[in-house]
C-alpha cells in the first residue's frame, strides 16, 4: 500500500476524514468544499477510504474501491475519473449505516420563515432537484440527501453536502447557478450523468442551525399535477422505508418518528415542472399555521 493523502470535512454535525491513494479526487473535494469548516483530527466521526481496486491498479487504468468504517460488500469499483462521486458515495454510506445521533431520512430539506420543508421519495422523485431549485428562489438549502431528525427535540438538522445533480437537472441548474459552483461533469456513472453543485454560501455558514419541520412532501415527478392527503399509517410506513437507521435506533427512533408523523402535515405531490411544484409548495406553505 502506497502513501495515502487525506482531507478533513465537516458537514452539519458530522466530521469526515477522506483518505485517498490519489490526489485528484481530494483536490476536487477540497475545491468544492472550500467554504466549509475543517474539523480537528480528533473530532472525526467517519473515515472514507478511496483505494485501488487491486494494488497494481493504482497506476494502470486505476479504479477506485470505496472503503470505510462501514461498507457494503457489493459496492462496485469506479473509474478514477469518478473518484469525486466515490468520495460522496462513501460519505453517504458512512452516514446511512453508522450515524446514531439522529433519525436519518432519505429526504431533501429546505427552510423558510424559520421552519423546514422535508421532501422524501424514491430516486427520480425529484426531491434533490427541488431542493436545489428552491435554494435559488428564497429558501435556505439544508440538504439534498439526508434530513437528520432530532431524537429529543424533533427538529431537522442541516446536512448540506454537495448537491448531486443528475441528468436533466444538470442543465436546469446551470441556467441558475454560477459556473464556479459546479464540479466536473461525470458522464455515464452507475447513477447516470452526475455533476455536483456547491450549496449557496448561507447554507454552509448556518449549517449548525436546526429547524422545526412544518411540512412533509412525497413528490413524484412526471405525473399530472395533484396534491393528495395521506393516511398516517401510509406516511409512517413510507418514512420507515426512507430511513436508513430506524431499526438500529430502537425505541428512540420509534418515539422520534411517531412524533414527526403526529405533528407534521404531509401530502403526496405529483408535478410535471419545477414551476408547478413551486406553485403547489407556496400554496401549501402559505396555509400553514
Amino acid at each position, binding site marked *: 500500500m502506497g502513501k495515502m493523502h487525506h482531507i478533513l470535512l465537516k458537514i452539519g454535525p458530522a466530521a469526515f476524514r477522506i483518505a485517498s491513494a490519489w490526489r485528484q479526487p481530494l483536490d476536487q473535494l477540497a475545491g468544492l468544499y472550500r467554504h466549509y469548516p475543517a474539523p480537528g483530527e480528533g473530532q472525526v466521526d467517519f473515515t472514507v477510504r478511496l483505494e485501488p481496486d487491486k494494488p497494481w491498479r493504482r497506476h494502470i487504468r486505476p479504479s477506485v474501491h470505496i472503503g470505510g468504517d462501514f461498507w457494503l460488500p457489493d459496492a462496485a469499483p469506479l473509474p478514477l475519473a469518478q473518484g469525486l462521486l466515490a468520495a460522496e458515495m462513501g460519505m453517504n454510506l458512512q452516514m446511512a449505516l453508522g450515524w446514531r445521533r439522529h433519525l436519518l431520512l432519505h429526504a431533501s430539506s429546505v427552510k423558510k420563515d424559520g421552519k423546514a420543508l422535508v421532501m422524501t421519495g424514491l430516486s427520480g422523485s425529484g426531491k434533490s432537484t427541488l431542493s436545489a431549485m428552491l435554494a435559488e428562489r428564497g429558501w435556505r438549502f439544508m440538504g439534498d440527501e439526508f434530513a437528520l431528525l432530532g431524537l429529543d427535540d424533533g427538529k431537522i438538522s442541516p446536512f448540506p453536502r454537495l448537491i448531486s445533480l443528475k441528468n436533466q437537472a444538470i442543465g436546469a441548474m446551470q441556467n441558475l447557478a454560477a459556473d464556479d459552483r459546479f464540479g466536473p461533469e461525470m458522464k455515464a456513472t452507475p447513477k447516470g450523468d452526475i455533476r455536483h453543485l456547491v450549496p449557496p454560501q448561507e447554507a454552509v455558514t448556518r449549517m449548525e442551525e436546526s429547524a422545526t419541520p412544518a411540512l412533509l412532501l412525497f413528490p413524484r415527478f412526471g405525473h399530472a399535477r395533484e396534491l393528495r392527503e395521506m*393516511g*398516517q*399509517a401510509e406516511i*409512517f*410506513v413510507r418514512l*420507515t422505508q426512507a430511513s436508513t437507521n430506524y*431499526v438500529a435506533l*430502537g*425505541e428512540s427512533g*420509534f*418515539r422520534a418518528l*411517531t412524533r414527526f*408523523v403526529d405533528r407534521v402535515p404531509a401530502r403526496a405531490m405529483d408535478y410535471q415542472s419545477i414551476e408547478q411544484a413551486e406553485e403547489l409548495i407556496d400554496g401549501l406553505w402559505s396555509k400553514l399555521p
Partner: protein
Amino acid sequence: MTQKYRAAPAEDLIWHDLDSMKLLYHRPSGITHILADPAPAIFEVMEEAALAATEIIARLTALFDIESGGDAEEIILARLEELSLLGLVSRVPG
C-alpha cells in the same frame, strides 16, 4: 385442556395511534408492528391475565359491538396464533 394466552407484559409494549390503525413497538425485539382491528382490542381485554379464546371473546363482546355467533372464535384464535408467532402473546397451558 384448554389453550390459554397471555399478552406480553405492558411495560414491554409502546402503543401509538395512527388513524384507524395502531402502532405497537415491542421493546424486547425492537420490532414495530402495525395492527388493525381486532388485534388492539384483544390486547385491551386480555390485560395481563391468561385467558382462553372463549374468555377473550366474552370480554370483547361485553366491550365492543361484535356479531354474535358466526366465526368470531375462529377469527380470534387465528389472531392469537399470529400474535404468538410474533412474540406479542404467549401460549400458556390451561
